[in-house]
């Protein structure tokens, strides 16, 4: 046998030679387990195919009838790859940690990237085989339905890109979550969320999010997936739809989808890679997190801004779909929805900020170890980019970027030819305040008391007041003012209230208009005071830690 140092590993891209991939090919493709699943898949797909075609043949010519089964089969393929595959990746990864064998793989002399690829394609190998078993039906439908090859290419290219992104997300969930059932459910829940809730958010001005799903490519391919006459109608209607816009660039939906998903896939690879290198490290480093935050802001703006002039960004245009364009040619957006969009943009920005702060804020243990190391090495400060250093300044950078993003977004909408309103710089200050109180307060809690306390505060202070406020407002109109006051306690309501207060183009009910500003400023001042106290407490702890580290 060759000496240890001489043993050469296969290149990362040689998936067939990847030991982890091969290991899962062996364990997940045993005839006993695979056989039943394969039979069930073929029965269900065959049934869907035969039924769709049989119904279609009554009314359509053979070419059109052959196209009908494509969409039902695509749904089955989506369930197999998106849902089952992602769940399997997350659950399988958690199981590795749960059984304790993950340390063996950690010690294996393979590159972190090779390990990531091995798990990424190995864990869901059974689902890939099940997917392949449905392909003959698809190929037949494409062939007989005379669907152009490029449609198959862009559609299944999109499927592959989405699958990789979702499975990588599952891999990240699997490395973070300890319970395999939870990992399975959470990852499948995330996909469900992505295909139900996220597209609705996209209709509120955050167009970018729809590119995380297969919808844009599917819509672009739709004229070729339905009977030819209907396809022609869809194609005509689609000409009214804008292409994927990114500032001044017009891109095909498929290209932009691949680009958008690619960035998130890259971020997920970095997360898994970091965990492979060191199991205790943060999922993302500080620079990566801020860069990701900035990039998402750029993508949101890049997609949204070009759609304002034509009105395609507004919910009332999007919620009605293509229908509005035919039915109501003199359509105009309402001022209320513009304010709502500014609020939604703010809430999404704040949510993203809070999530990334969870990722980069060091817990107590990490801080103690960092300080002890620093003390031992005779240094004075924690390494600025290291996991153990404070995320305070990084939170500040993200708050600044988020405020700029919100201001640009809101200014472009409100000062557009639809409203001719004005957004003053002071409005950005109000919005920034809502990010400052929530962001710095959250950062300080995480650094001072850890994630468990943070979650408790998030639920009690962030979620519960909003729920109470909503119930009160819905139950009785007379309770609307107290509902606003109670809901405003939540830092999550800050961006929405900032938009209502500062963007004065919409006519809200009088009581709302009167109650919102004092409620916003009163609670924001209190929250600011709270955030300052928390930051002070966190600093105090840091001093104490510095002293502890000497022991």
């Amino acid at each position, binding site marked *: *046998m*060759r000496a240890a140092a001489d*043993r050469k590993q296969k290149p990362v891209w040689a998936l067939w030679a990847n030991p982890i991939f*091969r290991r899962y090919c062996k364990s997940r493709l045993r005839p006993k387990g695979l056989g039943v699943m394969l039979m069930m898949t073929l029965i269900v797909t065959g049934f869907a195919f035969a039924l769709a075609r049989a119904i279609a043949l009554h009314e359509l010519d053979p070419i059109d009838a052959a196209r009908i089964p494509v969409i039902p089969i695509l749904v089955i393929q989506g369930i197999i790859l998106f849902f089952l595959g992602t769940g399997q990746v997350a659950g399988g990864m958690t199981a590795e940690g749960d*059984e*304790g064998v993950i340390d063996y793989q950690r*010690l294996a002399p393979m590159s972190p990237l090779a390990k990531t690829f091995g798990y990424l394609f190995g864990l869901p190998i059974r689902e890939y085989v099940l997917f392949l078993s449905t392909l003959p039906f698809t190929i037949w439908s494409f062939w007989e339905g005379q669907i152009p090859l490029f449609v198959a290419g862009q559609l299944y290219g999109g499927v592959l890109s989405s699958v990789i992104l979702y499975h990588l997300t599952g891999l990240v969930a699997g490395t973070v979550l300890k319970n395999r059932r939870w990992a399975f459910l959470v990852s499948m829940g995330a996909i469900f969320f992505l295909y139900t809730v996220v597209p609705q958010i996209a209709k509120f001005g955050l167009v970018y999010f729809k590119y995380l799903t297969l919808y844009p490519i599917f819509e672009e391919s739709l004229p070729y997936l339905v009977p030819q006459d209907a396809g022609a109608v869809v194609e005509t209607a689609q000409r009214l739809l804008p292409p994927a816009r990114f500032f001044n660039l017009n891109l095909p939906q498929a290209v932009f989808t691949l680009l958008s998903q690619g960035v998130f896939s890259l971020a997920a690879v970095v997360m898994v890679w970091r965990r492979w290198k060191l199991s*205790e490290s943060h999922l993302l480093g500080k620079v990566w997190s801020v860069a990701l935050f900035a990039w998402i802001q750029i993508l949101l703006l890049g997609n949204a801004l070009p759609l304002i002039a034509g009105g395609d960004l507004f919910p009332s245009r999007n919620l009605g779909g293509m229908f509005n364009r035919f039915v109501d040619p003199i359509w105009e957006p309402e001022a209320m929805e513009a304010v709502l969009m500014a609020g939604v943009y703010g809430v999404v920005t704040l949510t993203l900020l809070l999530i990334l702060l969870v990722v980069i804020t060091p817990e107590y243990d990490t801080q103690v170890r960092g300080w002890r*190391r620093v003390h031992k*090495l005779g240094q004075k400060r924690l390494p600025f980019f290291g996991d153990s250093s404070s995320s305070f300044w990084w939170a500040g950078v993200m708050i600044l970027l988020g405020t700029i993003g919100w201001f640009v977004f809101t200014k472009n909408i409100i000062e557009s030819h639809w409203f001719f309103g004005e957004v003053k710089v002071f409005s950005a200050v109000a919005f920034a305040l809502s990010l400052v109180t929530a962001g710095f307060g959250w950062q300080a809690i995480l650094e001072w008391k850890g994630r468990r306390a943070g979650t408790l505060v998030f639920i009690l202070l962030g979620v519960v007041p909003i729920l109470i406020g909503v119930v009160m407002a819905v139950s009785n109109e007379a309770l609307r003012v107290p509902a606003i006051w109670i809901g405003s306690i939540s830092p999550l309501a800050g961006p929405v209230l900032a938009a209502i207060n500062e963007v004065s183009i919409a006519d809200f009910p009088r009581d709302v208009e009167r109650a919102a500003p004092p409620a916003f400023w009163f609670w924001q001042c209190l929250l600011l005071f709270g955030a300052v106290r928390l930051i002070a407490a966190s600093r105090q702890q840091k001093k104490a830690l510095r002293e502890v580290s000497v022991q």
Partner: protein
Amino acid sequence: MSDYALEVHDLRVDYGDFVAVDGLSLKIPRGKVVGLVGPNGAGKTSTFKVLATLMEPTYGEVSMCGLDVLEETAKVRKLLGYMPDLAPVPSDLKLGEFLEFHADTHALGNKAQRRARVDECLARVNLTAKRNAWCRKLSRGQTQRLVLAKTLLHEPQVMILDEPASGLDPLSRRELRLTLQSLAREGVTVLVSSHILSELAEMCSSIIVMNQGKLLASGTAEEVRSELGSDRREMTMKVLGTTGELFSWLTAREGVSELVQEEGAVKFDFVGDDEAQVQLLADCVRAGFAVKTLEEKRASFEEILVEVAEGNETPLEE
């Protein structure tokens, strides 16, 4: 090239405020079987995890065969064989598949070569007959042996084995001892941990004792015994006639405690070296007691360890 297989300098591992390993320094020469012993929470597993590149210490320098464990992780992993405590195995693989997978991760030649190496390792741990059995169906002892085979697969230069003997029957323990000693003869360095000091004493050329994250003693088994438990011994002195006077006389003697009066004998604990013991006996005879026999029982390794572990416990009153 360094003469030492493992060198640790001022190693510290913290879990929040809990110090798991505190300023540990040691040097382990090549080709030795060295035992690491200590009660639960002594810091053995944390030390092993750092040595095995699975954990970053708070600080400290660790090198393996001259390579920096924290900086040259990939190279170190090629030289290292690590067997964790309660060695886990995957539930969805058979024995042969499990070992072939790990042979594959270490790039041990082509398929035939890997298979041959797997067979060799299975034979070494007497599991050849179980090649096609499911890993999950193995007994605790068989699982330990399987993971030992996995650890041997890539012919590591340094083996770190955390409680490898737990769950093994006496025969398997003996085989483990012989295997480790033969590996040491081949130049492999083995660092092995156990709660059972006597077990380590049988298989190790030297022993390191840890407690509360610190190194308490190191050396050969006898050196460690004398270092940790030399002072205390249980004595039974048999005399002719009544024991009342002897009891009173011994009570006043320095180093004597825990006296128990029995029929024709007094039992007591004596703390002191061999010379002090000779002096005690001489004084006793000089004082006129008709000493028939003086039996001495020194604390066993286990008792020493229990004493060390009991020293960790904080009294409830505090």
